Protein backbone atom coordinates (compact mmCIF):
# COMPACT_ATOMS: atom_id res chain seq x y z
CA UNK A 1 0.00 0.00 0.00
CA UNK A 2 1.17 3.56 -0.64
CA UNK A 3 0.30 5.03 2.73
CA UNK A 4 -2.23 7.47 1.33
CA UNK A 5 -5.14 5.00 1.30
CA UNK A 6 -7.47 4.81 4.30
CA UNK A 7 -5.99 2.45 6.86
CA UNK A 8 -5.80 1.77 10.57
CA UNK A 9 -2.57 1.27 12.50
CA UNK A 10 -2.69 -1.82 14.79
CA UNK A 11 -2.18 0.45 17.79
CA UNK A 12 -2.41 4.25 17.96
CA UNK A 13 0.85 6.03 18.73
CA UNK A 14 3.22 3.52 17.15
CA UNK A 15 3.74 5.21 13.78
CA UNK A 16 3.12 8.45 11.95
CA UNK A 17 3.30 9.59 8.35
CA UNK A 18 3.82 13.24 7.40
CA UNK A 19 3.52 12.41 3.71
CA UNK A 20 7.11 11.25 3.28
CA UNK A 21 6.54 7.65 4.34
CA UNK A 22 6.05 5.89 7.67
CA UNK A 23 8.15 6.57 10.75
CA UNK A 24 8.16 4.77 14.07
CA UNK A 25 7.47 7.06 17.03
CA UNK A 26 10.03 6.55 19.75
CA UNK A 27 11.01 8.28 22.97
CA UNK A 28 14.17 10.32 23.52
CA UNK A 29 15.30 10.43 27.15
CA UNK A 30 16.53 13.84 28.22
CA UNK A 31 18.94 12.74 31.02
CA UNK A 32 20.46 9.58 29.46
CA UNK A 33 20.06 10.57 25.81
CA UNK A 34 19.04 7.05 24.74
CA UNK A 35 16.05 6.31 22.56
CA UNK A 36 13.42 3.63 23.01
CA UNK A 37 10.37 2.22 21.25
CA UNK A 38 7.43 2.39 21.59
CA UNK A 39 7.02 5.85 23.14
CA UNK A 40 6.66 6.00 26.93
CA UNK A 41 6.79 8.83 29.47
CA UNK A 42 9.37 6.96 31.54
CA UNK A 43 12.67 5.89 29.95
CA UNK A 44 12.77 2.06 30.05
CA UNK A 45 16.58 2.11 30.25
CA UNK A 46 17.31 4.63 33.04
CA UNK A 47 13.89 5.23 34.63
CA UNK A 48 13.86 9.02 34.17
CA UNK A 49 10.42 10.63 33.82
CA UNK A 50 11.64 13.00 31.15
CA UNK A 51 11.21 11.87 27.58
CA UNK A 52 9.98 13.50 24.41
CA UNK A 53 8.67 12.06 21.19
CA UNK A 54 11.11 11.45 18.36
CA UNK A 55 10.60 10.05 14.87
CA UNK A 56 13.03 7.14 14.61
CA UNK A 57 15.17 6.64 11.52
CA UNK A 58 13.43 4.65 8.75
CA UNK A 59 16.81 3.16 7.79
CA UNK A 60 18.73 0.43 9.57
CA UNK A 61 20.73 -2.76 9.15
CA UNK A 62 19.64 -6.37 9.60
CA UNK A 63 20.86 -7.78 12.93
CA UNK A 64 18.83 -11.02 13.29
CA UNK A 65 16.10 -12.71 11.30
CA UNK A 66 13.99 -15.82 10.87
CA UNK A 67 10.57 -16.71 9.47
CA UNK A 68 7.30 -17.44 11.24
CA UNK A 69 5.85 -20.48 9.45
CA UNK A 70 2.51 -20.93 11.25
CA UNK A 71 0.07 -18.25 12.40
CA UNK A 72 0.88 -17.26 15.99
CA UNK A 73 -1.99 -16.85 18.48
CA UNK A 74 -4.37 -13.99 17.59
CA UNK A 75 -2.88 -13.42 14.12
CA UNK A 76 -4.93 -13.71 10.93
CA UNK A 77 -2.50 -12.24 8.38
CA UNK A 78 -0.47 -14.10 5.76
CA UNK A 79 2.10 -16.81 6.63
CA UNK A 80 4.93 -17.44 6.33
CA UNK A 81 6.30 -14.02 7.16
CA UNK A 82 9.76 -12.72 7.96
CA UNK A 83 10.58 -11.70 11.52
CA UNK A 84 13.72 -10.25 13.02
CA UNK A 85 15.64 -7.40 14.58
CA UNK A 86 16.81 -4.32 12.70
CA UNK A 87 19.47 -2.08 14.18
CA UNK A 88 18.87 1.65 13.74
CA UNK A 89 22.45 2.88 13.94
CA UNK A 90 21.44 6.57 13.97
CA UNK A 91 19.21 5.95 17.00
CA UNK A 92 21.51 3.40 18.75
CA UNK A 93 18.45 1.17 18.96
CA UNK A 94 17.43 -2.37 17.93
CA UNK A 95 13.82 -2.90 16.87
CA UNK A 96 11.83 -6.16 16.87
CA UNK A 97 10.06 -6.21 13.54
CA UNK A 98 8.34 -8.06 10.76
CA UNK A 99 10.62 -8.49 7.72
CA UNK A 100 9.15 -8.38 4.20
CA UNK A 101 11.30 -11.34 3.09
CA UNK A 102 9.94 -14.67 4.36
CA UNK A 103 12.82 -16.80 3.03
CA UNK A 104 15.70 -16.57 5.55
CA UNK A 105 18.17 -17.75 2.90
CA UNK A 106 17.58 -14.53 0.94
CA UNK A 107 18.88 -12.25 3.71
CA UNK A 108 22.35 -11.39 5.03
CA UNK A 109 23.79 -9.92 8.23
CA UNK A 110 24.15 -6.14 8.10
CA UNK A 111 21.96 -5.76 5.01
CA UNK A 112 20.49 -2.21 4.69
CA UNK A 113 16.78 -2.19 5.55
CA UNK A 114 14.01 0.40 5.12
CA UNK A 115 10.78 0.88 7.09
CA UNK A 116 7.54 0.12 5.23
CA UNK A 117 3.88 -0.52 6.02
CA UNK A 118 2.67 -4.11 6.19
CA UNK A 119 -0.99 -5.17 5.99
CA UNK A 120 -1.90 -7.74 8.66
CA UNK A 121 -5.69 -7.59 8.85
CA UNK A 122 -8.87 -5.79 7.73
CA UNK A 123 -11.08 -3.75 10.04
CA UNK A 124 -14.93 -3.71 10.21
CA UNK A 125 -15.05 -0.93 7.56
CA UNK A 126 -13.01 -2.94 5.08
CA UNK A 127 -9.92 -0.80 5.62
CA UNK A 128 -6.46 -2.33 5.87
CA UNK A 129 -5.03 -2.77 9.35
CA UNK A 130 -1.32 -2.09 9.06
CA UNK A 131 1.80 -2.42 11.17
CA UNK A 132 5.48 -1.72 10.59
CA UNK A 133 7.90 -3.93 8.71
CA UNK A 134 11.39 -3.58 7.30
CA UNK A 135 12.33 -4.48 3.74
CA UNK A 136 15.77 -4.84 2.10
CA UNK A 137 16.65 -1.33 0.84
CA UNK A 138 18.06 -2.56 -2.45
CA UNK A 139 14.84 -4.18 -3.68
Amino acid at each position, binding site marked *: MSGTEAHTIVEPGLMRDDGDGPRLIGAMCVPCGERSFPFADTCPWCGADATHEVALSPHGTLWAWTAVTAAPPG*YSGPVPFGFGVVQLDDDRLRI*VTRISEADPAMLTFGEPMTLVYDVVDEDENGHDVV*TWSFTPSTR
Partner: protein
Amino acid sequence: MNDVHIAGVGLHPFGRFEGHSITDLGAAAVHAALAEAGIVDRRGFQATFCGTAYGGVAAAHKVLARLSLTGGPIVDVEAGCASGAAALMLGAAAIRAGQYDTVLVFGVEKMPKGIIRSSFFEPWREQAGLAATPAYFALRAQRLMRESSLTKADLATVVVKNRRHGMHNPDAMFRKEVTAEEVLASRVVSEPLHLWMLCSPNEGAAAVVLRGGGNSNAVSVRAAVLRSHLPGNVLDESTPLSGLVDDDIPSATTPAADAAYEEAGVEPGDLDMVECQDTDAARELLAYEELRLCSRGEAGKLLADGATALGGRLPVNVSGGLLSKGEPLGASALGQVIELTNQLRGAAGPRQVTGARLGLAHTVGRGANASVTILSR
Protein backbone atom coordinates in the same frame (compact mmCIF):
# COMPACT_ATOMS: atom_id res chain seq x y z
CA MET B 1 19.85 -18.63 59.50
CA ASN B 2 18.07 -21.96 59.73
CA ASP B 3 19.08 -24.74 57.38
CA VAL B 4 16.41 -26.01 55.04
CA HIS B 5 16.23 -29.61 53.86
CA ILE B 6 13.96 -31.62 51.63
CA ALA B 7 11.74 -33.90 53.71
CA GLY B 8 9.76 -35.39 50.84
CA VAL B 9 9.16 -35.22 47.10
CA GLY B 10 6.29 -36.29 44.87
CA LEU B 11 5.91 -36.14 41.10
CA HIS B 12 3.01 -36.60 38.72
CA PRO B 13 4.58 -37.58 35.36
CA PHE B 14 4.85 -34.89 32.66
CA GLY B 15 2.82 -35.55 29.51
CA ARG B 16 -0.77 -35.43 28.29
CA PHE B 17 -3.49 -36.77 30.57
CA GLU B 18 -6.93 -36.44 29.05
CA GLY B 19 -9.73 -36.91 31.53
CA HIS B 20 -7.55 -35.80 34.43
CA SER B 21 -8.05 -32.28 35.81
CA ILE B 22 -5.27 -29.98 36.94
CA THR B 23 -6.52 -30.65 40.48
CA ASP B 24 -6.07 -34.40 39.95
CA LEU B 25 -2.48 -33.87 38.84
CA GLY B 26 -1.63 -31.60 41.76
CA ALA B 27 -3.28 -33.89 44.32
CA ALA B 28 -1.24 -36.89 43.14
CA ALA B 29 2.08 -35.05 43.53
CA VAL B 30 1.18 -33.44 46.87
CA HIS B 31 -0.11 -36.71 48.31
CA ALA B 32 3.13 -38.49 47.39
CA ALA B 33 5.39 -35.75 48.79
CA LEU B 34 3.54 -35.52 52.09
CA ALA B 35 3.57 -39.31 52.46
CA GLU B 36 7.34 -39.38 51.94
CA ALA B 37 7.74 -36.64 54.56
CA GLY B 38 5.61 -38.64 57.02
CA ILE B 39 2.91 -35.97 57.10
CA VAL B 40 -0.54 -37.43 57.70
CA ASP B 41 -2.78 -34.36 58.02
CA ARG B 42 -3.00 -30.56 57.84
CA ARG B 43 -1.14 -30.12 61.13
CA GLY B 44 2.03 -31.47 59.52
CA PHE B 45 2.90 -28.24 57.67
CA GLN B 46 2.17 -24.56 58.18
CA ALA B 47 2.05 -22.99 54.71
CA THR B 48 1.78 -23.77 51.00
CA PHE B 49 3.32 -22.00 48.00
CA CYS B 50 2.23 -23.21 44.56
CA GLY B 51 3.78 -22.30 41.21
CA THR B 52 1.34 -22.12 38.31
CA ALA B 53 0.91 -19.84 35.30
CA TYR B 54 -2.22 -21.20 33.67
CA GLY B 55 -3.86 -22.83 36.71
CA GLY B 56 -6.47 -20.11 37.23
CA VAL B 57 -7.87 -18.68 40.45
CA ALA B 58 -7.01 -20.55 43.67
CA ALA B 59 -5.47 -23.52 41.87
CA ALA B 60 -3.58 -24.67 44.97
CA HIS B 61 -6.63 -24.26 47.23
CA LYS B 62 -8.51 -26.70 45.03
CA VAL B 63 -5.72 -29.27 45.32
CA LEU B 64 -5.47 -28.96 49.10
CA ALA B 65 -9.25 -28.95 49.52
CA ARG B 66 -9.35 -32.25 47.64
CA LEU B 67 -6.98 -33.71 50.23
CA SER B 68 -8.56 -32.02 53.29
CA LEU B 69 -5.37 -30.03 53.85
CA THR B 70 -6.64 -26.44 53.95
CA GLY B 71 -6.49 -24.11 56.94
CA GLY B 72 -3.02 -22.64 56.61
CA PRO B 73 -1.94 -19.93 54.18
CA ILE B 74 -2.06 -21.06 50.54
CA VAL B 75 -0.43 -18.80 47.93
CA ASP B 76 -0.29 -19.27 44.16
CA VAL B 77 2.90 -17.89 42.63
CA GLU B 78 3.33 -16.91 38.97
CA ALA B 79 6.79 -16.20 37.56
CA GLY B 80 6.59 -17.70 34.06
CA CYS B 81 8.86 -20.71 33.54
CA ALA B 82 10.39 -20.03 36.96
CA SER B 83 7.05 -20.24 38.84
CA GLY B 84 7.87 -23.44 40.74
CA ALA B 85 11.31 -22.12 41.71
CA ALA B 86 9.73 -18.87 42.87
CA ALA B 87 7.43 -20.88 45.16
CA LEU B 88 10.46 -22.76 46.48
CA MET B 89 12.35 -19.51 47.09
CA LEU B 90 9.44 -18.14 49.15
CA GLY B 91 9.02 -21.36 51.12
CA ALA B 92 12.71 -21.68 51.92
CA ALA B 93 12.97 -17.99 52.86
CA ALA B 94 10.03 -18.27 55.27
CA ILE B 95 11.66 -21.25 57.00
CA ARG B 96 15.03 -19.51 57.17
CA ALA B 97 13.35 -16.47 58.69
CA GLY B 98 11.84 -18.68 61.39
CA GLN B 99 8.25 -18.06 60.28
CA TYR B 100 7.49 -21.75 59.64
CA ASP B 101 9.05 -25.12 60.37
CA THR B 102 7.57 -27.09 57.47
CA VAL B 103 6.29 -25.79 54.13
CA LEU B 104 4.64 -27.53 51.20
CA VAL B 105 5.85 -26.27 47.83
CA PHE B 106 4.36 -27.56 44.64
CA GLY B 107 3.81 -26.66 41.02
CA VAL B 108 1.03 -27.73 38.71
CA GLU B 109 0.07 -27.06 35.10
CA LYS B 110 -2.23 -28.28 32.36
CA MET B 111 -1.40 -26.44 29.14
CA PRO B 112 -2.93 -26.37 25.69
CA LYS B 113 -1.03 -27.86 22.75
CA GLY B 114 1.00 -25.79 20.30
CA ILE B 115 2.23 -22.23 20.68
CA ILE B 116 1.04 -21.02 24.06
CA ARG B 117 -1.41 -18.14 23.97
CA SER B 118 -0.18 -15.80 26.65
CA SER B 119 -1.92 -12.82 28.23
CA PHE B 120 1.60 -11.37 28.24
CA PHE B 121 1.11 -10.06 24.70
CA GLU B 122 -1.25 -7.13 24.11
CA PRO B 123 -4.01 -7.84 21.53
CA TRP B 124 -2.34 -5.56 18.96
CA ARG B 125 0.93 -7.47 19.22
CA GLU B 126 -1.00 -10.66 18.50
CA GLN B 127 -2.75 -8.98 15.56
CA ALA B 128 0.63 -7.87 14.17
CA GLY B 129 2.00 -11.43 14.41
CA LEU B 130 4.46 -10.46 17.13
CA ALA B 131 3.28 -13.10 19.64
CA ALA B 132 5.34 -15.72 17.80
CA THR B 133 7.15 -17.12 20.83
CA PRO B 134 9.34 -19.74 19.04
CA ALA B 135 10.51 -17.07 16.58
CA TYR B 136 12.08 -15.12 19.46
CA PHE B 137 13.89 -18.33 20.46
CA ALA B 138 15.05 -18.65 16.85
CA LEU B 139 16.50 -15.14 16.77
CA ARG B 140 18.41 -15.87 19.98
CA ALA B 141 19.68 -19.12 18.47
CA GLN B 142 20.79 -17.34 15.30
CA ARG B 143 22.71 -14.71 17.27
CA LEU B 144 24.36 -17.42 19.40
CA MET B 145 25.49 -19.19 16.22
CA ARG B 146 26.65 -15.89 14.73
CA GLU B 147 28.75 -15.02 17.78
CA SER B 148 30.31 -18.49 18.14
CA SER B 149 31.30 -21.43 15.97
CA LEU B 150 28.06 -23.25 16.83
CA THR B 151 26.04 -24.75 14.00
CA LYS B 152 22.67 -26.40 13.52
CA ALA B 153 24.45 -29.73 13.96
CA ASP B 154 25.37 -28.67 17.50
CA LEU B 155 21.72 -27.84 18.21
CA ALA B 156 20.80 -31.33 17.02
CA THR B 157 23.50 -32.80 19.30
CA VAL B 158 21.81 -31.20 22.32
CA VAL B 159 18.50 -32.83 21.35
CA VAL B 160 20.12 -36.23 20.79
CA LYS B 161 21.87 -36.01 24.17
CA ASN B 162 18.78 -35.03 26.15
CA ARG B 163 16.49 -37.49 24.41
CA ARG B 164 19.02 -40.26 25.10
CA HIS B 165 18.91 -39.27 28.79
CA GLY B 166 15.11 -39.18 28.66
CA MET B 167 14.94 -42.84 27.62
CA HIS B 168 15.73 -43.70 31.24
CA ASN B 169 13.11 -41.39 32.77
CA PRO B 170 9.70 -43.07 33.15
CA ASP B 171 8.17 -39.68 34.07
CA ALA B 172 9.18 -38.02 30.75
CA MET B 173 6.78 -37.47 27.85
CA PHE B 174 9.25 -38.55 25.12
CA ARG B 175 11.27 -41.67 25.94
CA LYS B 176 12.52 -42.66 22.49
CA GLU B 177 16.08 -42.06 21.33
CA VAL B 178 16.45 -39.85 18.24
CA THR B 179 19.26 -39.33 15.74
CA ALA B 180 20.69 -36.01 14.56
CA GLU B 181 19.41 -36.82 11.07
CA GLU B 182 15.87 -37.23 12.39
CA VAL B 183 16.08 -33.97 14.33
CA LEU B 184 17.27 -32.09 11.23
CA ALA B 185 14.57 -33.79 9.14
CA SER B 186 11.77 -32.55 11.41
CA ARG B 187 10.04 -29.48 10.01
CA VAL B 188 11.54 -26.03 10.39
CA VAL B 189 9.41 -24.04 12.83
CA SER B 190 11.55 -20.90 12.66
CA GLU B 191 14.99 -21.11 11.10
CA PRO B 192 17.38 -22.37 12.60
CA LEU B 193 15.01 -24.21 14.95
CA HIS B 194 13.37 -27.45 13.84
CA LEU B 195 10.33 -28.87 15.62
CA TRP B 196 12.29 -31.45 17.60
CA MET B 197 14.65 -28.74 18.89
CA LEU B 198 11.71 -27.18 20.78
CA CYS B 199 10.18 -28.49 23.99
CA SER B 200 6.45 -29.19 24.21
CA PRO B 201 4.24 -27.35 26.66
CA ASN B 202 2.31 -30.07 28.51
CA GLU B 203 0.84 -31.20 31.84
CA GLY B 204 2.24 -32.34 35.14
CA ALA B 205 2.81 -31.63 38.81
CA ALA B 206 5.73 -31.72 41.22
CA ALA B 207 5.72 -31.29 45.01
CA VAL B 208 8.47 -30.80 47.59
CA VAL B 209 8.16 -30.64 51.38
CA LEU B 210 10.71 -28.26 52.94
CA ARG B 211 11.66 -28.54 56.59
CA GLY B 212 13.86 -26.36 58.78
CA GLY B 213 16.86 -27.55 60.74
CA GLY B 214 19.82 -29.70 59.83
CA ASN B 215 19.46 -33.32 58.82
CA SER B 216 22.80 -34.83 57.87
CA ASN B 217 21.15 -37.53 55.81
CA ALA B 218 18.76 -35.30 53.83
CA VAL B 219 19.23 -33.18 50.74
CA SER B 220 19.83 -29.53 51.71
CA VAL B 221 18.60 -26.43 49.92
CA ARG B 222 21.83 -24.44 49.71
CA ALA B 223 20.48 -21.61 47.56
CA ALA B 224 17.10 -20.65 46.07
CA VAL B 225 17.42 -17.50 43.98
CA LEU B 226 15.12 -15.68 41.57
CA ARG B 227 16.14 -12.69 39.45
CA SER B 228 14.48 -10.63 36.73
CA HIS B 229 15.98 -9.12 33.57
CA LEU B 230 18.09 -6.01 33.39
CA PRO B 231 16.73 -3.56 30.80
CA GLY B 232 18.13 -3.11 27.31
CA ASN B 233 18.69 -6.59 25.81
CA VAL B 234 16.43 -6.81 22.75
CA LEU B 235 16.39 -10.63 22.76
CA ASP B 236 15.97 -11.49 26.43
CA GLU B 237 12.94 -13.37 27.74
CA SER B 238 11.10 -10.14 28.53
CA THR B 239 10.47 -9.99 24.74
CA PRO B 240 10.68 -6.19 24.43
CA LEU B 241 10.00 -4.32 21.18
CA SER B 242 13.32 -2.50 21.29
CA GLY B 243 16.73 -2.76 22.90
CA LEU B 244 20.00 -0.90 23.13
CA VAL B 245 23.02 -1.46 20.86
CA ASP B 246 24.87 -3.13 23.73
CA ASP B 247 25.97 -6.77 23.72
CA ASP B 248 27.16 -6.84 27.32
CA ILE B 249 23.84 -6.73 29.18
CA PRO B 250 23.72 -10.01 31.16
CA SER B 251 20.76 -12.34 30.87
CA ALA B 252 18.72 -12.68 34.09
CA THR B 253 20.35 -16.10 34.51
CA THR B 254 23.83 -14.76 35.25
CA PRO B 255 22.93 -12.53 38.21
CA ALA B 256 20.73 -15.36 39.54
CA ALA B 257 23.60 -17.82 39.24
CA ASP B 258 26.14 -15.48 40.81
CA ALA B 259 23.84 -14.85 43.77
CA ALA B 260 23.17 -18.58 44.16
CA TYR B 261 26.86 -19.52 44.06
CA GLU B 262 27.51 -16.92 46.74
CA GLU B 263 24.55 -18.02 48.88
CA ALA B 264 25.67 -21.66 48.69
CA GLY B 265 29.36 -20.85 49.11
CA VAL B 266 30.29 -22.90 46.04
CA GLU B 267 31.75 -22.31 42.58
CA PRO B 268 30.62 -23.60 39.20
CA GLY B 269 33.58 -26.01 39.19
CA ASP B 270 32.25 -27.69 42.35
CA LEU B 271 29.02 -28.85 40.66
CA ASP B 272 28.43 -32.53 39.92
CA MET B 273 25.36 -32.03 37.71
CA VAL B 274 23.00 -29.42 36.28
CA GLU B 275 19.36 -29.36 35.19
CA CYS B 276 18.88 -26.31 32.95
CA GLN B 277 16.24 -24.60 30.81
CA ASP B 278 16.30 -26.33 27.42
CA THR B 279 13.11 -24.73 26.09
CA ASP B 280 14.95 -25.02 22.80
CA ALA B 281 18.29 -26.62 22.02
CA ALA B 282 20.13 -23.29 21.78
CA ARG B 283 18.78 -22.22 25.19
CA GLU B 284 20.73 -25.03 26.84
CA LEU B 285 23.97 -23.89 25.18
CA LEU B 286 23.33 -20.28 26.24
CA ALA B 287 22.78 -21.53 29.80
CA TYR B 288 26.24 -23.19 29.85
CA GLU B 289 27.78 -19.75 29.41
CA GLU B 290 25.27 -17.77 31.50
CA LEU B 291 25.65 -20.19 34.44
CA ARG B 292 29.45 -19.92 34.03
CA LEU B 293 29.83 -23.65 33.38
CA CYS B 294 32.24 -22.53 30.66
CA SER B 295 33.68 -19.27 29.33
CA ARG B 296 31.84 -17.15 26.79
CA GLY B 297 32.05 -18.80 23.39
CA GLU B 298 33.03 -22.21 24.82
CA ALA B 299 29.58 -23.89 24.98
CA GLY B 300 30.18 -25.84 21.78
CA LYS B 301 33.44 -27.23 23.12
CA LEU B 302 31.78 -28.35 26.37
CA LEU B 303 29.10 -30.10 24.34
CA ALA B 304 31.49 -31.66 21.81
CA ASP B 305 33.74 -32.99 24.58
CA GLY B 306 30.80 -34.98 25.93
CA ALA B 307 31.24 -33.25 29.30
CA THR B 308 27.50 -32.57 29.60
CA ALA B 309 26.33 -36.09 28.70
CA LEU B 310 25.67 -38.76 31.33
CA GLY B 311 29.10 -40.14 32.25
CA GLY B 312 30.80 -36.83 31.40
CA ARG B 313 32.49 -34.37 33.73
CA LEU B 314 29.36 -32.25 34.32
CA PRO B 315 26.19 -33.98 33.09
CA VAL B 316 23.42 -31.55 32.09
CA ASN B 317 19.77 -32.55 31.93
CA VAL B 318 20.17 -36.23 32.77
CA SER B 319 16.41 -36.21 33.43
CA GLY B 320 16.05 -35.77 29.67
CA GLY B 321 15.46 -32.04 30.10
CA LEU B 322 12.38 -30.23 28.92
CA LEU B 323 13.11 -31.61 25.43
CA SER B 324 12.16 -35.08 26.77
CA LYS B 325 9.86 -34.22 29.67
CA GLY B 326 7.92 -31.36 28.10
CA GLU B 327 7.34 -28.16 30.04
CA PRO B 328 4.38 -27.79 32.40
CA LEU B 329 5.35 -24.21 33.35
CA GLY B 330 4.47 -24.15 37.05
CA ALA B 331 5.80 -27.66 37.70
CA SER B 332 8.95 -27.77 35.59
CA ALA B 333 11.37 -26.07 38.02
CA LEU B 334 10.27 -28.37 40.85
CA GLY B 335 10.59 -31.34 38.49
CA GLN B 336 14.26 -30.37 38.19
CA VAL B 337 14.54 -30.12 41.99
CA ILE B 338 13.05 -33.60 42.35
CA GLU B 339 15.51 -34.95 39.77
CA LEU B 340 18.42 -33.45 41.73
CA THR B 341 17.00 -34.78 45.01
CA ASN B 342 16.74 -38.32 43.65
CA GLN B 343 20.23 -38.06 42.16
CA LEU B 344 21.78 -36.77 45.39
CA ARG B 345 20.04 -39.59 47.26
CA GLY B 346 21.64 -42.03 44.81
CA ALA B 347 18.18 -43.22 43.79
CA ALA B 348 18.07 -42.23 40.11
CA GLY B 349 18.43 -45.73 38.69
CA PRO B 350 19.97 -46.11 35.21
CA ARG B 351 20.49 -42.35 34.85
CA GLN B 352 22.32 -41.97 38.16
CA VAL B 353 25.25 -39.55 38.13
CA THR B 354 27.90 -41.46 40.06
CA GLY B 355 28.75 -39.85 43.38
CA ALA B 356 26.61 -36.74 42.85
CA ARG B 357 26.84 -34.46 45.92
CA LEU B 358 26.11 -30.99 44.55
CA GLY B 359 23.56 -30.08 41.88
CA LEU B 360 22.15 -26.94 40.28
CA ALA B 361 18.71 -26.38 38.75
CA HIS B 362 18.00 -23.44 36.41
CA THR B 363 14.97 -22.00 34.69
CA VAL B 364 14.47 -18.84 32.68
CA GLY B 365 11.39 -17.56 30.94
CA ARG B 366 8.74 -14.94 30.54
CA GLY B 367 8.93 -11.93 32.76
CA ALA B 368 11.81 -12.19 32.33
CA ASN B 369 12.43 -14.41 35.35
CA ALA B 370 15.41 -16.67 35.99
CA SER B 371 15.85 -19.07 38.89
CA VAL B 372 18.89 -20.91 40.17
CA THR B 373 18.50 -23.49 42.94
CA ILE B 374 21.47 -25.34 44.44
CA LEU B 375 21.06 -28.57 46.42
CA SER B 376 23.64 -30.71 48.19
CA ARG B 377 23.94 -33.83 50.29
